[in-house]
């Protein structure tokens, strides 16, 4: 079981309030991702849940029991750190066994859980090595193994993939998702990478400057971002924003349209522009266009498959009307 409730939780370091009071509920078994730009307080929020930092005010409940003043070890949560934080002088086996040893679990049960975790994480051949002799991906798996054997109420991940190279990151992402499907345990995952958030989460919490901007499923955030910040942060490549007359025509201060919701033509269309850079990826073509409607910023357009265009070509863009997002002067979404 692992239902975590934050009730008016706030955190200040001295006079600086990094997290103004916020409320959040994470349901049992849910994969929740905290996402936001660096310095937005997402790691601090995770550490507050873990108990590694004291909260300034408010209440944290785990399974409806007050855990605000419970020390980290007693909260029944396991954490995977960005640096993995493996114990360098212990073998992989001893690393994984450490939390069980601290809990006083008997040796036979320890061995059983270690073997199960090692098998699940493909670590069986490495159990007697030291962390220093492992690759980044293997270290990551050891850190996860150390978390699994405790059978925690919830897992906390603090940017666990940011030290891995791009190819390995995709692989580990899948492994963590699969682990969640298998264990059905609550997981809270912190990242600044919105792709990780979109691919893994049941529920995304978008944070900015310690404030929750929006909570929802990945597709809810993609389709109905509640403000300009979320609209710009979720989705890759970024949403295009257009201000001025074009927006005013639709009764908004700013309109937003995603690169994949614009069709492009060399002959006719709603907005005229010239091609700045064309990126040909084979599966997609990304075009960066200097359009008349958006004089200050280049617009990004994503075209399926190949589209032959070169620097300086004149093109015409047509947005799909039902996919245009409208935002008011305060940045909030207008229906």
């Amino acid at each position, binding site marked *: 079981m692992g239902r975590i409730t934050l009730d008016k939780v706030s955190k200040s370091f001295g006079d600086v309030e990094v997290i103004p009071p916020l409320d959040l509920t994470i349901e049992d078994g849910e994969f929740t991702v905290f996402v936001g730009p660096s310095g937005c307080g997402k790691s601090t929020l995770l550490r507050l849940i873990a108990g590694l930092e004291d909260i300034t005010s408010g209440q944290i409940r785990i399974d409806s029991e007050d855990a605000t003043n419970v020390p*980290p*070890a007693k909260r029944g949560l396991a954490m995977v*750190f960005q640096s993995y*934080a493996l*114990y360098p*002088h212990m073998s992989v086996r001893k690393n994984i066994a450490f*939390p069980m040893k*601290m809990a006083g679990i008997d040796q036979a049960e320890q061995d059983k859980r270690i073997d199960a975790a090692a098998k699940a994480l493909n670590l069986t051949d490495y159990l007697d090595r030291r962390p220093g002799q492992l690759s980044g991906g293997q270290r990551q798996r050891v850190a996860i193994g*150390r978390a699994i054997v405790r059978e925690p109420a919830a897992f906390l991940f603090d940017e666990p993939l940011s030290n891995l190279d791009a190819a390995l990151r995709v692989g580990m992402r899948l492994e963590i998702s699969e682990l969640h499907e298998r264990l059905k345990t609550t997981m809270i995952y912190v990242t600044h990478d919105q792709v990780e958030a979109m691919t893994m989460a049941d529920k995304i919490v978008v944070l900015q400057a310690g404030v929750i901007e929006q909570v929802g499923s990945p597709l809810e955030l993609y389709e109905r971002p509640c403000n300009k910040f979320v609209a710009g942060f979720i989705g890759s490549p970024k949403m295009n924003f257009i201000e001025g007359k074009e927006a005013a025509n639709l009764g908004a201060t700013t309109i937003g349209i995603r690169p994949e919701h614009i069709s492009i033509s060399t002959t006719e269309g709603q907005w005229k522009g010239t091609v700045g850079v064309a990126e040909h990826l084979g599966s997609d073509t990304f075009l960066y266009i200097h359009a008349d409607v958006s004089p200050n910023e280049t617009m990004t357009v994503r075209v399926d498959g190949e589209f032959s265009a070169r620097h300086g070509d004149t093109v015409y863009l047509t947005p799909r009307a039902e996919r245009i997002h409208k935002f008011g002067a305060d940045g909030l979404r207008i229906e």
Partner: protein
Amino acid sequence: MATQQSRSAARLMMAPAVVLLLGWMLVPLTMTLYFSFKKYLPLRGGDLGWVGFENYARFLTSSAFWPSVQTTLVIVGGVLAITVVLGIFLAILLNQPMWGQGMVRILVIAPFFVMPTVSALVWKNMFMDPNYGLLAHLWKLFGATPVEWLSQASLPSIIMIVSWQWLPFATLILLTAIQSLDSEQLEAAEMDGAPAHKRFAYITLPHLGRAITVVILIQTIFLLSIFAEIFVTTGGAFGTKTLSYLIFQRVLESQNVGLGSAGGVYAIILANIVAYFLVRIVGKNLDA
């Protein structure tokens, strides 16, 4: 240093230092070996010719020899134990954020800058004197008879003085080691359910292993040849005669250079035995 040229250039430039260091070591060593096979009494006839291993036999069978080896080992062992244990304790304390941290650290390191002779004299006269020493006043305050430190508890007194001198060194090395400990490891152990004393035993102490080894090895080298502290306090009396002090007495007080040189060779052998065991016990910490 990859190419042939850069390697030979490096050798050429290191040569003066290597030659100088080698000479510095070889000349005294050869002279010691040379004199140890001679009967050489500077004020009583000078060089009286070769005597083979007679000096070695005499030094070894002297009633002062084995007690001096024991005294040496007790002082080295005692100082090592005190400085390492207290050094770890102080390093952990100094690593805590506190007001006036920089100043406190300088104060802790200060004893290391005091010359051994001076610090031993300060201890002898200002602290341990049975009439006007600070400790005597403290004892009198509680109505006790002041301890005559340097005669009644001579060996512990010397160990105390030398530990005071070397504690800053141990603290400094261990403090820098503690500062390099990744705080996420401690947090991970905290999440894993390890209380403070277990975090110390399982995370901090193993992390300090290499630094403790360095402290032990370096201090042993210097403590085996400890002299000034004994010279100005007890003068070798009351069971404080170490091997190096015994050699000093043979050469300068008995004016027997040959006998003293043989003692010097025994000191080299003792140092090597100690080094062998130390490297076997703690040396593996230096690997990897």
